[in-house]
C-alpha cells in the first residue's frame, strides 16, 4: 500500500492523536448521558478500499447511523453506527425514559441521536484541532436508519476516488464497562493524511 505507508513514528503520532481524541469524544458522551462511556479502539488500520466493506458488520443488516463530515486539514467521514434496538435504548437513556419506550425514531429521537453524533464528533474534532493547530469544522449530523451497505457505499465510493487504500479507525462503544454493539468510525480523506500526520509531529511549525 505505497501511497499510505506509515512508518513507526507516523503510527505513534497517529495513535497518540486518535487515542486522545477518542477519550475526549467518550468524555463528551459520558457528560451527556450521565453514564460511564468509553471508546475502545478496535483497530487503526490502513486497508485497501475494497477491504473496508468486508471488515464491517454484514452490509444487509439494518443500522442506525449518525454521519458527520469533518472539514479540516484532515477531512474525514465520521460515522456512529448502532443496531436499531441499541439506538432506541440510547434515546431512552438520553430522554430519561424507561428502556423499551422508544419504538420509532421520530423527530425528537432523531434529534437526540444527532446530538450524540454531534457531541462525539465535536469532541473528536476539537481534540484533533488542538493537537494539530488546524481548524476543524463539523457538519450538522445526518441520522439515517437503513441497510449498512446503503449507508456506507457512498462514503467508500468517495474514498476510492483516486486512492486504493484508506485509514479506518474503528472503535467499540462501552457503557458501564459493557460493549453496546456500537461502532464509531473515522475515515479520513486519504489525500490529506500525510499533511495531517506531519502537522501532529512534535516540533512541527
Amino acid at each position, binding site marked *: 500500500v505505497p501511497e499510505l505507508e506509515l512508518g513507526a513514528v507516523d503510527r505513534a503520532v497517529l495513535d497518540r492523536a486518535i487515542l486522545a481524541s477518542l477519550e475526549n469524544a467518550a468524555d463528551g458522551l459520558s457528560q451527556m448521558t450521565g453514564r460511564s462511556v468509553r471508546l475502545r479502539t478496535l483497530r487503526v488500520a490502513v486497508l485497501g478500499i475494497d477491504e473496508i*466493506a468486508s471488515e464491517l458488520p454484514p452490509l444487509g443488516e439494518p443500522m442506525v447511523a449518525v454521519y458527520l463530515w469533518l472539514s479540516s486539514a484532515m477531512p474525514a467521514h465520521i460515522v456512529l453506527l448502532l443496531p436499531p434496538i441499541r439506538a432506541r435504548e440510547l434515546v431512552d437513556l438520553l430522554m430519561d425514559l424507561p428502556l423499551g419506550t422508544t419504538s420509532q425514531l421520530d423527530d425528537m429521537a432523531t434529534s437526540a441521536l444527532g446530538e450524540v453524533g454531534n457531541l462525539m464528533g465535536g469532541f473528536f474534532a476539537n481534540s484533533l484541532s488542538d493537537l494539530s493547530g488546524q481548524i476543524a469544522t463539523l*457538519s450538522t449530523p445526518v441520522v439515517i436508519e*437503513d*441497510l*449498512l*451497505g446503503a449507508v456506507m*457505499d457512498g462514503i467508500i*465510493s468517495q474514498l476510492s476516488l483516486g486512492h486504493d487504500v484508506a485509514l479506518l479507525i474503528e472503535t467499540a462503544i462501552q457503557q458501564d464497562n459493557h460493549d453496546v454493539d456500537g461502532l464509531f468510525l473515522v475515515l479520513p480523506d486519504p489525500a490529506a493524511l500525510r499533511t495531517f500526520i506531519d502537522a501532529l509531529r512534535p516540533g512541527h511549525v
Partner: protein
Amino acid sequence: MTIPEAARTVVAVGMGELTLSSDPSKILVIYGLGSCVGVCAYDPELGLGGVLHVMLPASGQPREPLTRYADRGVEALLQRMEDEGADLGRTQIRLAGGASLIALESNPGLASIGDRNLLSVRQTLAHRGLQAVAEHVGGNVGRRLELAIADGTVTVRVVGGQSSIL
C-alpha cells in the same frame, strides 16, 4: 422455472464487482445499495443473467477493478453477456439504487454520487442503443437487489418496506 427454496444459492455481488451466471439455482444479490447502482441484465432465451455493482460514475483516473466505474462496468457487463452468447436485442436491463442518503452542503460530492452514477449508466447504455426496461432508483432510501437466474425476476426491497418486482 421453479427452484425449491432449499436448492437456491445466494451469491453476493460486492462493491465494484460484476457477476454472471446461467445456473438457475443462483440468486445474485446486492445487500445494500445507497448511491451505488445495481445493473441487472438478463437474456430470457439463454437464462443468462449478470449483476454489476457500480460505485462511481466514470473512470477519469481508472483503478482496478474497472467494473467499479459506470462506463467501464456497463461495457464489461454487456461484453461478457455477448461473449456468453446473449443477444443484447432481447436482453432485459433493470436498474436500482442511485440514492442520496447523506445530503450535506459541506460535502456536495457525496450527495451527488448517486445521480452521477445513474446518469453515467444510462449514457453508457444509450451509446449501445439500450435502455433499462424498469428502474427503482433515486430518493434517499437504501435498497436490497436480487436477480433470480431461474426466471430473471428482479426484486428490490427497501428497509421497512415491501419487496417489489421490477
